[in-house]
């Protein structure tokens, strides 16, 4: 018997007429990566990512795409798997290099296809239930293959290509500009720089430029979306915000009052309980203090004896 989450069930979905398109695209992307990496002269650089990609697709290892990206990056630097001289990237260190673009586009297409296959055949929505309520036999929430539209694959590939070009533009920006702390805004065009003695190194400059630009975009988007979110709040959310702010400001005072009030209620309900707990805690405390005191006394006596001697 095959359970909905079993591997055979996963393979069955992969063979679905509509899902097959994604599998084919992922396979093509892997072949492209293989060919591009093979141009560095190393079979390892082409073969290992392909192997990882195939395993990820067949055995549905969800951690594999991340591992795949890391491997591609590593083998792009060290095509033979070890830090030996050679490789393509060191020969063409510029923007809009066709090989770089092809490789990045292929990686993107593969990742797109792989993650969409996971959504179709493995799991599309996280399971929010508490662990105790979950069973491995419960089918995961997936995207039904019938929802795949006709032009979806084409759109995905176009999107990947567009993202690749955008990535190249970002790279062009951070390589053609440099950070100069004496200016405001602190960047200048690289061609205008004559004296580089008091500038940051290339790596630091790129890192700062990318961090700043990425941070600005993300920060700006965050602010805009945050404001949009606030505008969409309904009455209960707004009330909760006010309540929570008030609670944060007055929490300490109320906490003390409520602690004692709760203790008082318990006392009223069980009149003898307080005295019983008092005695019990008192005994325990007395034991701790008494034996602690005795231990300290013994220690002190020992030290005193040691010093006097």
């Amino acid at each position, binding site marked *: 018997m095959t359970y909905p989450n079993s591997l055979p069930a996963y393979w069955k979905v992969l063979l679905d007429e509509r899902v097959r398109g994604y599998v084919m695209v992922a396979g093509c992307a892997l072949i492209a990566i293989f060919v591009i990496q093979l141009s560095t002269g190393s079979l390892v650089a082409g073969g290992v990512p392909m192997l990882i990609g195939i395993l990820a697709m067949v055995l549905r290892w969800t951690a594999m795409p991340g591992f795949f990206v890391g491997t591609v990056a590593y083998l792009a630097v060290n095509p033979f798997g070890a830090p030996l001289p050679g*490789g393509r*990237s060191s020969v063409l260190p*510029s923007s809009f290099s066709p090989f770089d673009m092809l490789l990045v586009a292929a990686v993107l297409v593969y990742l797109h296809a792989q*993650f969409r296959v996971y959504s179709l055949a493995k799991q599309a929505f996280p399971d929010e239930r508490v662990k105790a309520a979950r069973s491995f036999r419960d089918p995961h929430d997936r995207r*039904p293959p019938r929802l795949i539209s006709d032009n979806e694959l084409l759109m995905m590939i176009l999107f990947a290509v567009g993202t690749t070009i*955008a990535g190249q533009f970002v790279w062009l920006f951070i390589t053609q500009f440099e950070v100069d702390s004496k200016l405001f805004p602190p960047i200048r065009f690289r061609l205008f720089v004559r004296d580089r003695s008091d500038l940051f190194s290339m790596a630091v400059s790129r890192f700062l430029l990318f961090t700043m630009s990425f941070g600005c975009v993300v920060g700006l988007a965050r602010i805009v979306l945050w404001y949009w979110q606030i505008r969409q709040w309904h009455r*209960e959310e707004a009330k*909760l915000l006010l*309540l929570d702010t008030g609670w944060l400001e007055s929490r300490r005072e109320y*906490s003390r009052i409520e602690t004692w009030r709760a203790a008082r209620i318990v006392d009223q309900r069980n009149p003898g309980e307080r005295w019983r707990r008092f005695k019990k805690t008192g005994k325990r405390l007395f034991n701790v203090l008494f034996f602690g005191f005795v231990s300290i006394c013994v220690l002190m006596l020992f030290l005193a004896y040691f010093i006097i001697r």
Partner: protein
Amino acid sequence: MLTARGLWCLIVAGAVTLIGLTTVGVEHPIVAILGITLLVWYLVEGLLFTLRFRSTLGKIDVVREILQNGRVVSNAWSGIACTVRVMVTNRGKASWPLAIVMDRAPEARKIRGGYTEQTVEFLPNVPVVIEYELKSSGPGIYRFEGVEIRVADLAGFFYKRIFLRRPVDILILPPLTDSEGKQRADKRFNTLPPPGIHRLRRPGSGSELLDLRDYIAGDPPKMIAWKASAKKDKLITKELESDIPVRCTLFLDTSQAMRLGPVGETPLCRLSEVASSIAQAAAANRDLVGLTLFDEAKFDVLPAARNTVHTIRLLSKLADASAQRPDPGGQEVKPMVRIAYPLAQELYPDLFDRGLNSQPWGLFWKPLLDTRWGWLAWIPVLFSMIVNAPGVLALYYMLLGPLPKWLQSIMPLFTEWINFCARIVRQRPKSNYLLLDVPLFLFAMLLLLNLPITVTVIVWFIHGIRGFFSPHAPMRRKRKQLGAIFTVLDGGTPATVERYIHDDEFFAARAGKFLADHHVEVPVALYDGDGRYRFRSESKAVVLQNAILGSVSRARDNELFVILADLTELGDDMAAVLKAVRVARSRHHHVMVIVPWPSDVPAAEPGPKTDIDPMELLRVSKLVQIALVRGYQQRYEKLQKELVRVGATVLRVTDRDPIRAILDRLDRVRGARSRR
């Protein structure tokens, strides 16, 4: 919003970018380009998802319809399957590429057909239709909370769940009169008055002659009996009977004990069905039917009437009453949190946002001074102040001159103490570096002098830090979040939130109400801490007495009172009910009592008791069961005996046909009056 998959993808892309930009980026730009492109992809995906989500969020319509027999109805009938149809429409301009739209079906109701959820591409102006079938065996309420929508992107990086709260209560009315509740067909009396009417042998404006009497000035001339007047040679007037409809008043017990049991199968549901059948059958006879609902505290009267509107109102009241659940009462906080927290998370996901429902670190810290023994922490502080006094005194001496005499007398003690500490500290290992040894000496000296306060600080820290660990921290967090939501729903103040965190009883009561509001089953404690049955209510007898006496005072004629109540548990506290029944009987009203009967308790057989296998008696559980069954049967017999003694008829709801018996009695009431 980020899924685990998305988070790992972001981490990998970030790491590749960082490495590419800082270490290998100059010679191998491909690494940085790959990382940057992945981040751009991620950013674009995230922005697209958020834009689509936000632009559609407030523009979703939900339309719910209940269909029974192909017609849209506002109330459902028990025993008949009904179809729930929910149409969710996106009125925005953007679509959600992948969404699960789920209608939250009523709690504890089985879905008989169809599906409550659909995975769709949520397109603008294309309604998502969800249809499923429900069937209830008993009267009550279908509680529909709303529609849950889970949205994700196609790669599974981003995810959001919303709940469109559209609470609707649909009454499940008791079944329409079935074969057992139909009006009897055999005609007993040839002189039956019109249906619903019987003749009362009192002077009135009816059509049948009651008596003849002497004429009194003012009597209408048309009432003069001319023949009789001629015979007697004086004016004689005719007196006609009074035509009065038969009234039946139903007293339905809605106390806590009646609400025990699975949804739709409680004794209250069963008695509601009986009441409904009686009401409908009587209404078909054009008899007037009234309803009085009573519990431990109050009673609610629906005066007798016989039109259709009244019948529908009566059925609605019965359905409302049947939907009531027992008070879980005396619950511990933990089980309540275990049930209420997931429910609140499901229904109010927006109110669990950390920005709105915060959990500061201080929430988990356990303050030492708030404990009973916390004040003891001041003792070491005081001690520390004393041992540090020489330094203070030295300062006093330097600034203000010689010390007072009494202080001078105790100074040697301090000096000795300091010397003693110094001698101990001198035994420490030395590094022979002055710059290191002097601070170490001072530190060791301070530590020794302030040993008690150091220990106190450690105790304070250990006591406080315990709050950050399980089970304290999760419970605290859940209580705060639930408390804030309860406060928002009730319109409370920040102090109320804090009270929910600290006051167990207050929290448990509100959580119980929250669950009851949403018709969620809570395990009910049948016995209290002292082992007493929680649902035995003496006050119910007094309330029932008042209800019966009220009906007697309102009654214009001898009527039929049908008491549908669990009186078996009352035992010796029946006096009030007996008194009321006696009063009703003295006014010539008929009283019938129908009691619920547990399905696992057999009726007491007359004659010798059946033999029980002696081996069975060796099992404690069997012995307890036998004792409980016998006890219940004996209590019922006693109840029956006492009620019969005062003139009431007692029936069990499991008896062959209690509804038929009541209808017969109604006929008897009608017929007895018509006989001369």
